[in-house]
């Protein structure tokens, strides 16, 4: 989509969100080989438009949850960067005090209610959050992000059935990046059966879109979130996109042969950030200087966060047995 249909300010802020996610993750990739972030990391480089486009429609009071590949969702929802970086470094100042690592992020004050790495396992929890907030009479929307493998788990179907049954204010966002680790869709799901069709079977409003086109993402999410807020119940959104780097870890891995270099290059051409940038420049929404300023501002922020993370203390032995039970 080449038309910029959203307000300028929206684009500026979305662009910045995407760039921020990209730059944070590139920094993680750069530093990971130092072996100081001693936990698995699942980077979302290439997929930033989904997180940014969806979350731009949410207020702080709304809720977001996610799975193993959650950095982008956490940041797009306003999660604290320092706390995230410190968490990756296993520090006491991390968003989970070091007990969670990259695969378990949370920022309650930002409404990022938690991410955990069992495929599909946070889907029913997010539905429950929506159910709970509805019972409490709150006007909040819950968004749950997950991948294309998650729809193979039975619990996805159980969750969506319940959400439709109760008309819950929850948006299911499937980031279909064509792979589950090294496994293409073809060994996991019937050929020609689109994921969006699965959702439709449940009688839920369901749409499919280009996950690398942030305008499309934004507009589909906007409609869904508005419907949810008005009591119209859940929506399922499938966005096709692509992860650039290895499933887990900082490197590229197209050499492994599970996907082709040319497939990767095609998707790279469709970089959500580059493409938006081109259009923003074309339409004079941003100029080159703006973008450079943005980048250096972000660079400084990220540098700060890394220093914070590296300099923060580790948790102490006595913390091991803390927090087993809530008081």
């Amino acid at each position, binding site marked *: 989509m080449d038309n910029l249909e959203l307000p300028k300010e929206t684009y500026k802020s979305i662009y910045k969100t995407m760039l921020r996610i990209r730059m944070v993750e590139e920094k993680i990739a750069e530093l990971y080989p130092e072996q100081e972030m001693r936990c698995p990391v699942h980077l979302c480089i290439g997929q930033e438009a989904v997180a940014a486009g969806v979350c731009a429609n949410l207020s702080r009071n709304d809720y977001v949850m996610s799975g193993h590949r959650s950095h982008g969702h956490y940041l797009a929802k306003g999660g604290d960067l320092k706390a995230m970086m410190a968490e990756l470094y296993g520090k006491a100042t991390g968003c989970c005090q070091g007990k969670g690592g990259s695969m378990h992020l949370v920022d*309650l004050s930002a409404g990022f209610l938690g991410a955990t790495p069992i495929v599909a396992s946070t889907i*029913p*929890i997010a539905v429950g959050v929506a*159910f709970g907030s509805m019972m409490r009479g709150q006007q909040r929307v819950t968004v749950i992000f997950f991948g294309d493998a998650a729809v193979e788990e039975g619990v996805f179907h159980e969750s969506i059935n319940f959400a439709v049954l109760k008309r819950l204010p929850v948006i299911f966002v499937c980031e279909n990046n064509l792979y589950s680790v090294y496994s293409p869709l073809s060994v996991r799901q019937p050929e020609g059966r689109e994921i969006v069709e699965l959702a439709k079977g449940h009688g839920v409003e369901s749409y499919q879109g280009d996950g690398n086109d942030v305008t499309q993402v934004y507009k589909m999410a906007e409609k869904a979130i508005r419907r949810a807020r008005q009591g119209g119940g859940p929506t399922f959104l499938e966005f096709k996109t692509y992860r650039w780097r290895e499933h887990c870890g900082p490197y590229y891995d197209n050499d492994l042969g599970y996907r082709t270099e040319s497939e990767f290059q095609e998707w790279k051409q469709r970089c959500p950030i580059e493409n938006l940038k081109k259009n923003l420049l074309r339409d004079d929404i941003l100029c080159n200087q703006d973008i450079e300023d943005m980048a250096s501002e972000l660079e400084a922020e990220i540098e700060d966060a890394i220093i914070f993370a590296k300099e923060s203390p580790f948790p102490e032995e006595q913390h091991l047995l803390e927090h*087993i039970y809530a*008081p």
Partner: protein
Amino acid sequence: MLRKPQEESQIMSRELKYFQAINEAIDLCMTKDATVYIMGLGVPDPKGIFGSTLGLQQKYGSARVMDMPASENAMTGVAIGSALAGMRPIITHQRVDFALLAVEQIVNQAANWHYMFGGQMRIPLVLRMIIGRGWGQGPQHSQNLQAWFAHVPGLKVVMPTTPYDAKGLLVSSIEDNNPVIFIEHRWLYNTIGHVPEEVYRVPLGKARVTRDGNDVTIAATSYMVLEALRAAEMLATDGISAEVIDIRTLRPLDESLILESVGKTGRLIVADTGWKTGGFSAEIVTLVAEEAFSDLKNCPMRVTLPDCPTPTTPALANHYYPRAVHIVATARKMMGLSVDKIVSDMATSVPLDVPDLSFTGPF
């Protein structure tokens, strides 16, 4: 503040059945806290989960007392999520065997959230699970898997025996800020006991000496407490004084009460409703072996189900379930007395697949 509960030993006038005690605990908690709600297959149905949820939907409406789809796994996640949003859910599984579908949510998620998010999140959640028994429930409707849950950090595991404890422990469980596995034994539902009317609490993590004794400690769980008490009566006629401990909470375990008792008696029998190998009974034996070894006069012993699936036919069920006589035989052996007479008593003609003669099936 709520009134202090009347002591159990006081005025015993008001008696309730176990299922009524549970019902009353839920009822009172729903009255005093609008965030408490209950869901589960059949919760509002005409039989009301063996009576334990009868009348609640009429009183609190279908938003707080609800049926659910046959989706045990997701619905457990839904309960967890609703807890994150500030509710206090109670979810009911009519058989622990069905709850197996939900262990991923229970173990990976519910048990870990408080810890792995550095103490920020809490999940007040009661998971009621019924352990079946008898009348041909068979291998998939009568497993006793308390040992599984009691192995998992972050969970609390409760198995009340008396109506008094059922109510008091359920109130505590609903008020607790952690996931609590609340295990009810099918054969206890119609047992009767003193239950005060008001809200009272039996603390989680406290066992109870149900009968004092000096010669042997019988630490028992759930229905096996009743068998242990019967056994203690029988042993008393032989001059053996058995102390019966109702474990009540398997996790966190009241280690000191057990150790104290064994310190006095020097002998330990553990009677559990589950299987022998790797059962919760092994944890209690090990606790005592590690911590009170020098107190022990004899080897500690387990009285449990044998290590095989539940057979359906009553002909085999009669040999499957351990009873008071098995505890008696074990205790007599420990005391160096003969067990010949006891063993001959074991062959019984009483049907063991019903809790009492009022039970005529099918569930």
